[in-house]
Every structure is written in C-alpha cells, then in structure tokens.
C-alpha cells in the first residue's frame, strides 16, 4: 500500500474510458481466426449433425411423408417429425402460429417438415433429399395484391388517424397520388443460423445458439420439450452478424437441435447451409404502398393518406410490431397535421418475414420521402425545400400522429449544417448543367433526413439486467442480458463498467450471454442494446462501488466523500490503495462483491389500442446527401459521393458508432439498389445464395464517402452517459441513394414529373422508369 497520491495518475485516464475510440473487444480474435462462433465450439463426443427436409410446395396438405429411405441412408441415426415433439410445436414469438416442424400442412416452399440426424453433416444433408412426399396442393396466395383482395391477413389491419385527411386533401390546391412497390431484404448475416444442444444430467439441456434473444430460445426450447425454463440454459458468446434475423428465428433452430438431443441423448448440432438459411428464414417485409397527398403552393402537406400492405408471410412472427413501427415512421421528420395510415399485415404462402435493422421503420420513412419527391416534382421545386418546409417544429407543429410531443428535435440544425458542408446547392446547379449537356449519362442528387424513435414499442420489453462480480485480485466478471452480434455492445458496456469503477477495461472479463446469469432478458434489438444494458451494468457497478465506499470509509475512518476511485486506484482520505487491494480488503471484511443491476426505461407509456402516448424515450437524427450517375441506356448506376451527418448524442465509443453509421448506410443502399428477392410462380425463392442475391461489395462503396457525427450534442434524456442509440437509424440514411437515382431519372424528362421507380432500383427497375419517362414501356 503506497501512501500519498500520485498526482499524475489522476490526469491519466483509464484504458477504455467512456468516449474512447476503443477497438471491438474481440478484434484481435477476429483477425487471428481465434474468435469462437457457435460452429467453432469444441464438439462434444458423439455429436449428431442435423439437416432438414423442406417443403417444395407453397401450400399443401402432406398426405404421406415416407421417410423410410431417409432412415435407411448411411449414417442416419434419427428422423423426427412434428409428431415426435413432446411439448408445444410452436416457436412463434407473439402468437402460436409458427410450427417448429410442419404438422401435416405446409404453408411455404422451404418450410421444414422433418429433421434428420446423422453422424456427419453430409450424410444428414444427403439423406434429407430422399424423402418421398405426397402433397395435396391447396390454393396459394403468393403476392400482396392477391392477399389484400382476399383479405388474407395474419393480424387485423390497423388504422392511425389524426385530423381529416380526406377533407384536407380535397381542399388542398394540389394533390398527387400513386402506388410504389418496395422490395424486401435478406439479412445475409455471414454466419448462418446455428444451434448446438448438449444433454446434461437429469434431462437438462445446455444450448449454444446464435441468437439475439437467448431468453426466448430458452423458453421456447423448454416448451417444445415439455420441460420448464429452469431445465434449459442458453448461451451465446457472439454471432457472426444478425441484423434482426436472429431475433425470433433461432428458437426454431435450437428447438430442433434440442429435440434431437433430448431424444437420442447425444449432443446435436443444426447448422443451416446458405441456401436453406435464405429459403427457410424470414426477411425484411416487402411492401406495396398507396399514397394520396394534398399540399399548398409551397409544398406544405395539408393532408396525407397511406395504405401499407406488407408481406408477413405464413405467420405473424414479429409482424405486428414491425408494421406498427412502419406506421410510426411514415412521418419521418415531417409534421403531418391531417393523416390517415392504414396498415394491412398480409398473409401469404411465403416464408414468415421478420425483424431486420429498422424493424418496419425504413419502409414508413421510404413512403413519406417518396411522397415528398412527388410534391417537389409537381411544384418544380428542389425537394430539399419541400422537405424543410414540412419539418417538425421545435415549439409548435411538434406532435406526432401518435400524440408524442417531440422534445429533442434537431433535424433543422443537422440539415442546415449538412447542406452547407456537402455543398448541396452548388452541386445541384453544376449537375443540372451537366445533365443538360449529357445525353447518355445523367447525374442525380438528394438530401434526405432521418428521425428514428428509440425504444421497443412494446413497453414491457424496455428492461434489462446485469450481473457483476469483483474478484479478490480486483478483476471483474461482467454479464448482462444483451448479445453481441458485431455491433460492439459488449465493448460499450465494459467501457461503462470501467468508467464507473475506474479500472482499465482489460481487467474486465466480458462473458457470453447466458440465461442462467441474467434471466428473462429482452432481445438485443430496437437499437436499445447499450441504452438498456449499459444502464443495468452501471447500476450493478454502482452498487458494488457504494459497498466499497461504505466499507473503506468505515475501515479507514474517513467520510464517504473522501473515498475516490481514480485510474485503477482508490483514494481513501490520504491513503492510496489499488483497486485490487481494496477489493481484497473488502472480501476479507465479508463484504459482498457481487451485484445485479436492473434498468427500465423511464417516461415511456403507450396505449396500443389507441396508437397514442409516448412509445419512444427519444429520437435519433441524421441526414445524408447522395450523388449518383445513371446510364440511360442500361439503367446501371454508380454512387459517386455520400455525405452524412449523424447524431450519436455523446458517443460511448466514436469508433464503434462510426462503424454502425457506415455499415448501416451501405446495408441500406443494398436494400434499395442491388438486393433483389425473386420468387418464381410456384412460390419458390430463386435468389437464395450470394450468387444470385447481391449485397454490396467493396467497390460499391462510393469513392468519396464523408461521414461526420454531430458534435457536442448530449442526449436530452438521461441515457447512459447521454449517448444515443445508433444501431438502426443510419440504415435509413441510404434512402438518399434511392432518391438521388430518382432525381437522375427525373432529369430524363427535365424534372417535369416524378418517375415511377420501384425499389430496389436495379438496372432493370431504373431502365423501366427511364423508359416510362420517355413515354415508352419496358
């Protein structure tokens, strides 16, 4: 124990303090190939490998499922069907309409009907192809128009209304209406869905699952096996990407692995190959959007109506909340005083769509941005002027259609700044000039804003827990209910604990999400990971710190405010100890060095029945300017330059946040340009591998990519260190890419009208829009 404070030490920050641009905690493991994903975990003795037999029909009764050849195939040990499920044959997260294995009725091409377990993966996969199945085909609904016409819905349609939009539109000086189709998107996490179930004594199961929601996997596995939650433990150290695709769906994968393990007494692993993953698991919902809007000469919206029809697929999954979020984000940053939003949640005989970064928000935002472009074209104005004209106010015009008063609006400021730094006006003028003189190539530019609501709209989900142990050497074991999918959550939460305890981050062991450590955790979703788990971990750290302060003050006979934690040390009056020394002393004095932390988001309250209240704790803001060049002969385009200004509040880790902004932007650009999901007329997905489904590659990144974070804007709300959630919002900045393309296409017709461009804007979609502008048809 050293006496007397080292002055310098107080000026030196700890390693990994809040706000430092630390690399991802696993970065060194990622680059050396040593990071363990679920498929890399040491395989238990006698492990079985599972493959699934999938439906080839979109809607059919299974008359006969002859699995004799499957069972007889080399290496096969077990074959399971729905009948072999001892408990509940369902993994639906909200409604019980999602069978784990199809029970006599298949509802989409790719739906699993049986599981084969064999000694090797190849044996299982080969055997799965040997089933002889007799189907009785039923009528299938494969597209959205059919579904709406047939009133085929997974959930009741919803309506959100303020004012009298019909009257406002009729009374308005101008109006436009239209219909646009917006494609879905596959998550395309690089690590496919996977789970490994290991039997333990007394029928217990330990499940490794690549999941954003270990708690739900645990509960679903227990129910499927007819067990109780206490009998199952689920662990996930990291995922190789998730993006919402591992929120509800891993439960199915884990259940099948667990069923095999429970039945055979052998550990069992189910890893979907890429094709099975893309065919069998849900994606971002595609939409058909009908709109009708009335506005004045300045482009100010008087009344607006949207009818959304989204492809939910064969079951409800998370589609209720996803489509609610579409409704909540079809205002984006604009005040819509008279608005009617109708939302149909269509049931189709296709895979059940699910969460994907933005969770319905992007589709709502896309709709209003599309409308704003139409207004600008109709009035011959710069779309940016129309956008600005309609922005929410800060003191008035600041209540959303769902009755939440926006208290933190900074969109005007962001857009003003970005317009300046991106040189928007000058570039638009220059580009107009270019287009007038260029016959085959046309350039386009667009600035679009983002306002995204942060919180789960289902209020009860906004809770989190953490567990913290301090050992006698002063090192720390950290656990919380959040999961790591690459976003850097584990790093950020560890930074919070490091900051609270004033110890270097490498003294903190970041541990796998584990249902036996933190129970009943919500999915890591809705961008809320750091907000919720950071706060919970902070509470746990403060609890232990408080105990240490009380102990130290008593032990050394000083006042509590004379105990200070600085850079791995503790100053107790004039005495200086290392953090480790204090921990050891506290243990010796029989002080508990383990604590839980719990957090629930304050202020939110929201009534789903009336679609009103405060669903969101706060909003995250941003804006982007994109510029493209389009080839009018082929419809090819290239993204030339992007400028982004995004609001992360007071960033917990600017490097990780930058990563979310860049990655989200490019992912959003993929959604709206090259990523096209195609189905054939038999309801089968034809784009189920990277050979046919094209996510952005390296060269799609614009050469000129300028990302900035809004400086010195602490979150108004008391979030963890006044930071803001950043997982989802940046994806929607890429709507600017789509509108830049639309702008370029519009120049073909001298901006006299707004092109009907469908998303994704593939070369074909762009050429079709161009041809239409030229009065032709493709």
């Amino acid at each position: 124990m050293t006496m007397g404070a080292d002055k310098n030490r107080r000026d030196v920050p700890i390693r990994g303090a809040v706000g430092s641009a630390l690399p991802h905690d696993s970065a060194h493991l990622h680059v050396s190939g040593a990071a363990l994903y679920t498929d890399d975990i040491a395989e238990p003795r006698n492990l079985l490998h599972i493959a699934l037999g999938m439906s080839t029909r979109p809607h059919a009764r299974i008359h006969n499922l002859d699995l004799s050849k499957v069972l007889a195939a080399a290496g096969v040990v077990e074959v399971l069907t729905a009948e072999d499920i001892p408990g509940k044959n369902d993994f639906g997260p909200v409604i019980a309409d999602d069978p784990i294995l199809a029970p006599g009725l298949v509802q989409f091409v790719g739906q699993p009907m049986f599981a084969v377990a064999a000694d090797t993966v190849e044996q299982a996969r080969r055997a799965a192809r040997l089933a002889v199945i007799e189907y009785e085909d039923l009528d299938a609904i494969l597209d959205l128009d059919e579904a709406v016409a047939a009133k085929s819905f997974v959930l009741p349609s919803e309506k959100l209304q303020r004012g009298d939009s019909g009257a406002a539109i009729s009374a308005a000086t101008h109006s436009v209406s239209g219909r646009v189709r917006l494609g879905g998107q596959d998550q395309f996490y690089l690590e496919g869905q996977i789970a490994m179930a290991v039997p333990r004594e007394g029928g217990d199961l330990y499940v490794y699952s690549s999941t954003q929601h270990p708690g739900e996997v645990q509960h679903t596995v227990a129910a499927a096996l007819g067990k109780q939650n206490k009998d199952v433990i689920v662990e996930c150290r990291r995922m190789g990407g998730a993006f919402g695709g591992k929120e509800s769906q891993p439960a199915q994968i884990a259940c099948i692995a667990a069923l095999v393990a429970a039945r055979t007494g052998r550990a069992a692993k189910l890893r979907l190959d890429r094709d099975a993953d893309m065919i069998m698991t849900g994606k971002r919902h595609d939409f058909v959007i009908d709109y009708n809007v009335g506005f004045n000469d300045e482009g100010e919206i008087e009344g607006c109506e949207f009818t959304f029809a989204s492809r939910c697929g064969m079951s409800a999954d998370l589609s209720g909340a996803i489509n609610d979020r579409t409704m909540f984000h079809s205002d984006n940053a604009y005040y819509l005083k008279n608005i009617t939003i109708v939302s149909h949640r269509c049931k189709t005989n296709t895979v059940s769509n699910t969460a994907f970064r933005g969770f319905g928000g992007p589709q709502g935002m896309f709709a209003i941005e599309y409308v704003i472009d139409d207004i600008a074209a109709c009035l011959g104005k710069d779309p940016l002027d129309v956008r600005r004209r309609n922005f929410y106010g800060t003191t008035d015009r600041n209540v959303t259609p769902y009755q939440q008063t926006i208290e933190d609006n900074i969109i005007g400021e962001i857009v003003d700044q970005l317009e300046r730094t991106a040189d928007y006006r000058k570039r638009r003028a220059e580009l107009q000039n270019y287009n007038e003189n260029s016959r085959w190539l046309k350039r386009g530019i667009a600035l679009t804003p983002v306002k995204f609501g942060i919180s789960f709209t289902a209020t009860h989900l906004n809770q989190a827990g953490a567990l913290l142990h301090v050992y006698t050497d002063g090192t720390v074991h950290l656990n919380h209910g959040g999961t790591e999918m690459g976003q850097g959550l584990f790093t950020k939460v560890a930074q919070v604990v490091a900051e609270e305890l004033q110890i270097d981050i490498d003294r903190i062991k970041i541990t796998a999400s584990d249902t036996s450590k933190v129970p009943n955790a919500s999915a890591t979703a809705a961008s809320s990971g750091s907000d919720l788990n950071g706060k919970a971990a902070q509470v746990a750290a403060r609890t232990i710190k408080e105990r240490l302060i009380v102990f130290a003050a008593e032990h050394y006979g000083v006042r509590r405010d004379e105990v200070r934690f600085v850079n791995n040390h503790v100053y107790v009056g004039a005495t200086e100890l290392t953090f480790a020394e204090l921990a050891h002393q506290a243990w010796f004095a029989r002080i508990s060095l383990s604590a839980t932390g719990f957090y629930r988001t304050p202020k939110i309250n929201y009534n789903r029945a009336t679609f009103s209240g405060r669903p969101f704790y706060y909003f995250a803001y941003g804006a982007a300017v994109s510029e493209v060049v389009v080839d009018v002969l082929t419809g090819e385009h290239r993204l030339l330059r992007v400028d982004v200004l995004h609001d992360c509040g007071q960033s917990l880790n600017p490097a990780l946040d930058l990563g979310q902004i860049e990655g989200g932007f490019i992912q959003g650009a993929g959604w709206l340009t090259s990523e096209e999901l195609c189905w054939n007329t038999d309801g089968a997905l034809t784009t189920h591998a990277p050979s046919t489904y094209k996510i952005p590659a390296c060269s799609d990144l614009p050469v000129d990519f300028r990302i900035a974070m809004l400086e010195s804007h602490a979150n108004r709300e008391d979030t963890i260190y006044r930071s803001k959630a950043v997982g989802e919002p940046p994806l929607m900045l890429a709507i600017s890419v789509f509108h830049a393309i639309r702008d370029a296409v519009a120049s073909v017709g001298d901006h006299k009208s707004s092109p009907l461009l469908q998303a994704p804007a593939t070369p074909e979609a762009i050429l079709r829009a161009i041809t239409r502008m030229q009065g032709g048809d493709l």
Partner: protein
Amino acid sequence: MPQSQPEPAHDAIRFLLDGELVELANVDPTRTVLQYLREDKLRLGSKEGCAEGDCGACTVVVAETAAAGGLRLRAINSCIQFLATLDGKMLFTVESLQKPGGELHPVQQALVDCHGSQCGFCTPGFVMSLFALFKNSAAPERREIDAALAGNLCRCTGYRPIITAAERMYGYAANGATRWLDQPNTCNEEPRDEELQMTARLKEIRRSRALRLDSKGRQFYAPRSLDDLAALVLQFPQAVLLAGGTDVGLWVTKQHRQLETIIYTGQVSALKRIARSASYIEIGAAVTVTDAMPVITDEYPELQEVFERFASPPIRNAATLGGNVSNGSPIGDSMPPLLALGATLVLRKGERNREIPLDEFYLGYQEKALEPGEFVESLRLPKRTSDLQLACYKISKRFDQDISAVCVAIALQLDAGKVTDIRIACGGMAAIPKRAEHCEAALRGQEWSEPAISNVLSELDKDFSPISDMRASDQYRRVVCKNLLLRFHAETSGAVVSVYDYGR
C-alpha cells in the same frame, strides 16, 4: 527429379502447411480444403459463409514456385477447392500469420487499428485476401484494393475501414520485418533465404508421375503429361475433368452430387503454357483466368473491365479459361469476347488433334462438339488486326463478382465509315453463348451511324429470344442488348457512356 529424393507415393497427397510437410492417404477425392481445415485440422479460423465461392469467408492462400524462382501466392476459396488439388503446393491459413508470441501480422494489426471487423465472421477471409495483396503488390490504389477484395463480402462494416486497413498495412511492416510472412510485396523481388528454403521444400515434394487416389472406389487422377491425360480421358470417357473446380466444386458442395472418377488437369504443365505464333496466341486449357488475363488484355485492352469483373480474384486464381469455355455456360463471360474475336479451340482425343472455331463448339444448352474421350487442349486467340474496334459490356446487378444478365462483345472493322466486318456475340441471350448473325449481316456494308444502327436493331429479335429469370426479364435483356450497340457507337465517336468510366 534427383534420385536421392524418393518418388512420393502415388496414392497419397503431400503438401506444405505453413512450411511443414503434410502427407495424407485415402483422401476422399471431393473433400474440400475447408472441410479438411475445419473438421480434420481444427483450424477453425476459416469460415463457411456460402460453400459456393461467393462470400470469401473461407479464403486461404496457396503458394507455388514462381517461374522466376521464389514463391507465388494466390488467394483461393477453400470451400470449393478439393483437397487433392493441393498436392505439391503450400497452404497458408489465417492461423499461419500470427507470430508464435501472439503478435499480430501487419495485415491483422492494421485491421484491428482501423476497426475493420465488427461481427468478425468475414474477417479471416479478408485477412487472407489482404495478405495476398500485401505480398503481391506495393502501395495499391483504391481500385486495386477494391479489385483484390471483390471476392470478400462483409455485411457489417460497409468496407470503408477494411479499405483503410489495406492502405495502412504496409506501414506496419516498415520497420524491419524479419519474417518472410511480414515482408510486403516480396513476390516481385529476388527471393531471400526463408523463401528459398520454402521453395526448395516445394521442389522436394514435387512428383514426376501421376497421382492416383482411390477412396472407397472413387478415383482421382492427376496426370502430369499431356499424353497421360489424353490416355486417361480416353480410358475413362465418363470421368469428370477437373480444372479449377469453380464449376465442378459446386456440383459437390451445392448439388451434393457424388463424383465417381475425376481427372485433374491442373498438374499437366503442357496445358499451362501460353505460346505465341505469328497470327495467334495459344492459351493452354489449364491456364488460370488470372494468368490468361494480362496476356489477353495486353492484346485487347478493351477487355480489361470484363476480366476484372469476371468473378473475383480467388475464383480467377483457380478458374481456368479452358474450364469457362468448356463448361460453356450461356452466361459465361469469356465466350462473348472470344467469339467476337474469332477464337478457335484445339481439341484432343487420344493422339489426335483438331482445331474448330469456337462458334461451332456450342451446339445447344450444355451440349458441345466434344466427342467421348475428347477434351480441350488449348484456345487460340487471333492477334489484333490494325483497324479493329472492340468492346465488351457486362450488365449485372452488382459491379463486382456477379453473373452477367447480359454480356455483349462487339468487334468492328470500318472502311471509310462503312462496316466491312462486325461480329457481335452475346451471353445471357440464348441457351448458349451466341453470335447475332442476323444483326451482323444487316450491318455489314452499312454506314457506321446511329440511324443506320437503329434501323437494324430489330434484327436482334431474330437472333435471340432470351428468358426471364432472377437476373433480368427477357424484355430487359432484349432492350439492353440493343442499347449496348448504341453505346458502342457512341463510344466509337468518343463519348463516355458507361457509369464505370465516368469520372475515371
């Protein structure tokens, strides 16, 4: 081969892993390198993201002796590469790079410092592609970096930090790297001790006679001479010829087909030759696309873009031009330019050779003018004629690593503004790569002008009736094929008409 060196067993493969000898008997002929690494060696760093060569998560680096001495390093996709093809080569994986003490390789450290990984699943593959770049190139520019990473998908980062790492990685090696692994761009230098030792070890495991594997009745032959190859193909006319395996590999990993007899052409040195005569360049059937590319683009610089956009570097490093042409996919990218340029094929059966024009090779969908027991020995590409104007356009949803919806190659000869000859060849427009004979005929003798071209565009409808699929509709294919002719005309009059040329 010196006699002191015992000839390796003909039924076991030998290769070097990080310089250490690995000898494996009873190798399953279609076991992939990735399966070997993950399941047998428990080298778990290489990942499976797609098992079809499209995502790059499985990227590893293979070294062979370079013509100039020293080692030649190439990134490849381990998920579709059969293990048996490693015989006589050297393999590096992501686990090879870190120093024994745990210190990271410059490529790895640059990625950490630039925040180049998020979920990290793609990262080992990027590390290996960057490692190949690091060893093969000095101070690459953005376009070269993009090109080097075209076969690696990342869903998290948006690539920017990875590009930054690629730019900065050289800086980490600046202060006196002592290991060969850590020294950038040594492939273009005189090899030094460590590299010479590895080269010597590679020579030690080189075999002079054919490799013959038999695993549960399934055979794998890797002959070394052309005559042996010809004899084997004649003996086993039903055998699958395997070159780079970038088509064949997928039959196994995606279609789960069981291949009974495989004859590998990749060890036949005579098939890897590139030769020049007065009138043509002759490219052996086993020459990789990577190696064929500079030779072809040297003669025809207009083909640079289409070859840069042919798959990705790891695929091009394995794939052969001969395999592309032999496979004869209607959407293959080398055939349209080769057809437009009037390339011919040399076919070999037993001891007989014959030469046929490429036009006559494709009879129908997956049907070729190959007799049983016959194979492609080489391809002859005519040398440039002085007044030739050439273009090749690839249209796809994504710039890099995508399959063509439409690929159009046009070779034009003008005299006093009139078309003396034109050859238009298209991919994606029919069941085979095919020339637009009606359109060509209509253009011959015409003035090379937009109105004249526009007049005959409808001839293309006689030439082609394309299908609709997930890459494009029939309508789009038709229209774009016509428009590309207009694009070509505009380019011959000096305009910049492609978004990829804009601003570059």
